[in-house]
């Protein structure tokens, strides 16, 4: 069987014992932290049910809520932009930069900005664009991409970071002391916060009722990025809108517990306007970019809409036995792990990301920990179907990009033959008879299965036959 790109990437991690061990320890740490703030399962399930209800309500009223959000934001003095895709979103950012004659950006952590490839776009056009989240900063310094949506540099060991800093940060002497390493990074960032023309952030939740952008973080870099530079641009997937301010505590409780095992993050930023007369700080202008990039299409698909319930906590990846072994980079997508297996093919198409939907045992660990009850295994299975077949009633514009084109005629032929046999008792009986009687002919090794396992041997007589005898 030929190797796929995904398998080649996965093999890199699978063959690196040190890396897999470190990775496993990191995932265990996150899992244990999460369990430690979930004292009672019943209580958490009740909280999750409330969270899910809020997210469902938000998706049910998505168009109306977005209109309300825009209206509230405008009234608050926040400028609102709509971006249909990545290119538009990047151009909007550049447009704002041109207006302000800005040259440099400082960024808080934002998966939406990763999704649209903003760093690459801006740097290519000669802007300076620096990540200020420590994990993102490390990843950027190394010329890599995040391997986890919450812990971007989780794949990097302390030693790897020590070597990276010694090599790339001017005047920094090699140390493996974590506090000194963080100090070195912060010293660089502190200057950049003061000098940057524009701060960029993501949005965890956008409250339609009040026009408030909520942003959680632990390092304070999010607050710096959104208050120190004179302009703040927030990039927000359209599904992040929620109806009311009072919905926030429930969702934040779920998010921070599931993501980092915290009851609440060190910083919770609620941004409702630019600097007002009399305010001592804050940006003179706040821009909100509402990013669609395929989300409307997902929203129109009743079988896949639950994808948009996601609050991006990353618990699914921390608990996924596949992610835990291969890490985020193997997926080759911005969003890795189970939610990535569901989101990436829908945002960027099954042609590009069709392979990762096969990288799942459907064991259900992700669905079990999802704080808003997204049936992730079911959605992965559904995308396997879409890869091979576009639903008959679905219009092209509504189809998952690349749907139906992942059908292999060989594989389809095998399943066709299997279907014929398994739905015809007579034919199946013949096959059963053949397999049991010809058991001696079954080769000792068949394909990849038996490269690491002994080949299972059919019994001399099937259960079907044995049961027939019993009832005679």
């Amino acid at each position, binding site marked *: 069987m030929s190797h796929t790109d995904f*398998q080649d990437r996965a093999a890199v991690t699978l063959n690196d014992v040190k890396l897999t061990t470190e990775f496993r320890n990191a995932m265990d740490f996150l899992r244990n932290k999460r369990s430690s703030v979930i004292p009672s399962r019943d209580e958490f399930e009740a909280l999750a049910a409330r969270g899910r209800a809020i997210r469902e309500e938000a998706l049910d009223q998505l168009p109306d809520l977005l209109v309300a959000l825009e209206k509230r934001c405008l009234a608050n003095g926040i400028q609102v932009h709509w971006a249909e895709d990545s290119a538009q979103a990047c151009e909007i950012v550049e447009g704002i930069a041109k207006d302000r004659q800005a040259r440099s950006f400082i960024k808080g952590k934002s998966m939406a900005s990763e999704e649209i490839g903003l760093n690459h776009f801006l740097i290519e056009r000669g802007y300076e664009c620096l990540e200020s989240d420590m994990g993102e900063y490390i990843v950027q310094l190394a010329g890599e991409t995040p391997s986890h949506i919450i812990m971007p540099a989780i794949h990097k060991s302390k030693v790897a970071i020590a070597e990276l800093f010694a090599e790339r940060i001017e005047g920094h002497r090699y140390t493996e002391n974590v506090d000194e390493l963080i100090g070195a990074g912060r010293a660089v960032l502190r200057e950049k916060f003061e000098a940057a023309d524009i701060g960029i952030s993501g949005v965890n939740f956008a409250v339609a009722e009040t026009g408030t952008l909520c942003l959680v973080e632990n390092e304070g870099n999010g607050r710096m990025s959104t208050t120190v530079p004179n302009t703040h641009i927030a990039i927000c997937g359209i599904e992040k809108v929620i109806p009311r301010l009072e919905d926030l505590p429930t969702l934040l409780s779920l998010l921070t517990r599931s993501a980092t095992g915290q009851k609440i993050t060190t910083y919770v930023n609620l941004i409702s306007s630019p600097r007002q007369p009399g305010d001592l700080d804050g940006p003179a202008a706040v821009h909100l970019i509402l990013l669609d990039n395929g989300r409307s299409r997902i929203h129109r698909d009743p079988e896949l809409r639950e994808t948009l319930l996601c609050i991006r906590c990353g618990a699914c990846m921390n608990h996924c036995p596949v992610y835990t072994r291969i890490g985020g980079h193997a997926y080759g997508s911005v969003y890795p792990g189970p939610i990535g297996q569901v989101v990436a093919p829908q945002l960027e198409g099954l042609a590009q990301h069709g392979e990762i939907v*096969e*990288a799942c045992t*459907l064991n259900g660990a992700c669905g079990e920990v999802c704080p808003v009850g997204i049936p992730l295994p079911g959605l992965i299975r559904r995308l396997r179907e879409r890869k091979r077949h576009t639903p008959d009633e679905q219009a092209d514009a509504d189809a998952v990009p690349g749907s139906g084109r992942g059908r292999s005629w060989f594989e389809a032929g095998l399943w066709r033959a299997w279907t014929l046999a398994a739905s015809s008792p007579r034919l199946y009986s013949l096959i*059963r008879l053949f397999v049991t009687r010809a058991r001696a002919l079954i080769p000792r090794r068949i394909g990849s299965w*038996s490269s690491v396992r002994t080949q299972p041997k059919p019994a001399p007589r099937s259960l079907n036959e044995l049961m027939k005898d*019993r009832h005679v």
Partner: protein
Amino acid sequence: MTTSTRITKGNAAEHQRKDSQEIYFYGTCLIDLFLPQAGIDAVRLLEREGLKVLYPQAQTCCGQPAFNSGYRREALAVARSQLALFQKPIPLVIPSGSCAAMFRKDYPDLFRHEPEYEAALDLASRVYELAEFMVDVLQVQLCDQGAEEAVILHSSCSLRRSLSAHDQTLALLGQLNKVHLQEPDRASDCCGFGGTFAVKQPALSAALTRDKCANIEASGCKRLVGGDQGCLMNIDGMLQRQNSDIESQHIATFIWQRTS
């Protein structure tokens, strides 16, 4: 004790035990071809409780392999042929968590837009995994006649997560008072089988299975039991290749041998 008082999950509330009650039995395609003795032992366990076991000869496979591989229409065709075999309003007992989960959780989804939707829902409400049925409905009392033995259990992900019936397997095996039951470290981690996953992602599957085997070996137990032939074939296949002296058994055979 009335039947319904201790039952909180699954289908058990609706089915109360009656002697000489009929039940359907589904052997599963893997047990049918590779481990028929487990099927026979499961039937014996059920008959010993006074039940009449019906085994429709036209049963083949529940359709799960195609369903999980994205071949929904193919799965539907097979599922339709199986659905038709179990029309009497009596329980369907299956010695596999994964096939039971297919009938209970996935048939309703598979038939959602089909004329047989009601029939699929009805069947789903009558489906039990073997240990679940023995504990929740039959409330069996096992009498252990075997020797003292340390045994390690592997419960499938379907049994744990889809059916939430891992506790019943624990309760059932817990009745065997000379058995020292253990679970491996990371017991709830997938064994790496995943049906066609093992074929499509051989390296990943092998990595997961290797970890599972190492955790089983580390227990020191010389016998592995489990309720899902798919997982057992996968784990046992690797243990054998590694020349391990651990013997694998389906729980039906294990329980029958210790109690008869």
